[in-house]
């Protein structure tokens, strides 16, 4: 039973355009959400996070939006760059520090 769902296994975007990665969750006890980025042969690295008391958090080209009523969050990358090509994992925290990850979305930014 997947509590954190990333329904798009892959996404291709032209360089300079917006990339939108989506994530849905089912557990209403989740109160903190994170996005991680993973290059091949490397471990995931933290990208951006959002608390459930907010609906938006921005860091440079990266913005995460949270819609609690829909149990949906999204990561926007504007403008997309070829170096953004990676697998992006959505993660949610609920209970004592237990983090649940989605299965990931592979983003390819085409030059």
């Amino acid at each position: 039973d997947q509590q954190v769902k990333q329904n798009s296994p892959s996404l291709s975007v032209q360089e300079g355009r917006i990339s939108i990665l989506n994530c849905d969750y089912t557990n209403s006890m989740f109160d903190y959400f994170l996005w991680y980025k993973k290059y091949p042969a490397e471990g995931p690295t933290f990208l951006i996070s959002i608390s459930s008391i907010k609906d938006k958090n921005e860091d440079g080209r990266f913005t995460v939006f949270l819609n609690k009523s829909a149990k949906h969050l999204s990561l926007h990358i504007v403008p997309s760059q070829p170096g953004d090509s990676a697998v992006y994992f959505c993660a949610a925290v609920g209970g004592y520090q237990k983090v649940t990850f989605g299965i990931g979305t592979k983003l390819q930014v085409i030059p």
Partner: protein
Amino acid sequence: DVKVTQSSRYLVKRTGEKVFLECVQDMDHENMFWYRQDPGLGLRLIYFSYDVKMKEKGDIPEGYSVSREKKERFSLILESASTNQTSMYLCASSFPSQRDQETQYFGPGTRLLVL
């Protein structure tokens, strides 16, 4: 700069062998985690530890055990490796408790092949 290191990048083992995967972090983090990453399944938590000598089962602990004798070191043990344990294994560490510090720092991963 946080550093999490894993003892091997690639391992090839035979079915039935005992396998040790070692993880060391240098930031005095209290929390440490072991995940496996498989295509279509994402990252799944095997075991985690909040302190020395403490361990908690994650979502898929069967066939694994762990050891945390020192704060900086968290070992994953496959008592008798099986082919379905072929995977990428990722270790992570984090600060305790604070929600807005809930960032895990990952090692580079160990790709294990069990023949």
